[in-house]
């Protein structure tokens, strides 16, 4: 346990030194706040551009608040996810170059606490950023467009956090065998593939964690999705990834790369 805290503090310090605690939440907050403002002014902006016949312009209206929040989530799944994964890509792979691995690896028992600490640090950043961005978006939406209900909003947020979390966790095992950027792109690619598969074959992949983002959107727009299987499998997925990362690190000691 004490090993965990040592590594956790080290991860936190490193994140603070590279300003991650400022810029990642700031990006999420910006994405979240800009979306409702943009949707709110979109009809006006289109009108002012003047190229649209008035009949067509009348069709463009401000969507209901739930849809605006859902579109914020889809912003988070492109730019937000990219930012999270890219900012996490060097947590394991970076240990090669800065030498922590050499200190830690001779004592195998300390690899698992190190991994868990890295994971916990990543999750803290993820949750803080997402909650800030989501709350900002919800606040702007409710001020500009209309009130949102708490229940679906919180449910959707929880499922969405699970979705972001399992994808970001993929970086740990991949980072143990690959360089940082390669790990990041494979993680993003496999996440995209799983998510697309889950939406193509929904009946076969009930349990797939790739469904979580769709479930979050469905939660918002008024469905009552049965979502325990994907949520549970996302948690299992994260545990497996962390353990796999530990085993891979043990088997393939991190050699300093040129």
């Amino acid at each position, binding site marked *: 346990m004490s090993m965990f805290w040592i590594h956790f503090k080290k991860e936190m310090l490193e994140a603070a030194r*590279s*300003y991650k605690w*400022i810029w990642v939440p700031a*990006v999420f*907050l910006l994405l979240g706040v800009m979306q409702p403002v943009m949707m709110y002014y979109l009809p006006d902006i289109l009108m002012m551009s003047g190229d649209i016949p008035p009949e067509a312009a009348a069709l463009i209206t401000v969507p209901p608040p739930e849809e605006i929040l859902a579109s914020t989530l889809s912003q988070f799944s492109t730019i937000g996810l990219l930012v999270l994964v890219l900012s996490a890509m060097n947590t394991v792979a970076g240990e090669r170059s*800065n030498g922590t691995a050499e200190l830690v690896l001779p004592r195998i028992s300390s690899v698992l606490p190190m991994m868990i600490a890295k994971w916990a640090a990543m999750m803290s950043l993820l949750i803080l950023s997402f909650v800030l961005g989501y709350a900002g978006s919800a606040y702007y939406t409710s001020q500009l467009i209309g009130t949102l209900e708490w229940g679906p909003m919180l449910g959707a947020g929880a499922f969405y956090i699970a979705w972001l979390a399992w994808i970001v966790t993929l970086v740990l095992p991949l980072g143990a065998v690959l360089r940082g950027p390669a790990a990041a792109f494979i993680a993003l690619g496999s996440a995209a593939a799983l998510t697309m598969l889950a939406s193509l074959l929904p009946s076969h992949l009930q349990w797939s964690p790739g469904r979580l983002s769709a479930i979050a959107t469905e939660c918002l727009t008024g469905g009552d999705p049965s979502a325990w299987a994907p949520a549970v499998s996302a948690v299992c997925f994260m545990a497996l990834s962390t353990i796999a990362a530990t085993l891979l690190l043990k088997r393939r000691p991190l050699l300093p790369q040129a």
Partner: protein
Amino acid sequence: MEINWGLIWPIIALQAVLAVTALVSLTKAETEQIRGPKWMWVLIILLGNILGSVAYFIGGRRAS
């Protein structure tokens, strides 16, 4: 069209925070730690809005 500046200024302020953080990080870093010349990154951060700062934080620094 009436623009409600109360809505817009938090967005501008956040962008400013992001850009200032990136610039502070850039000035504190040693020249060897930065990929490419520093003045290039100053331009990218100032002209590239959100994406400029994000690009600097992700790609601008070599792993220590």
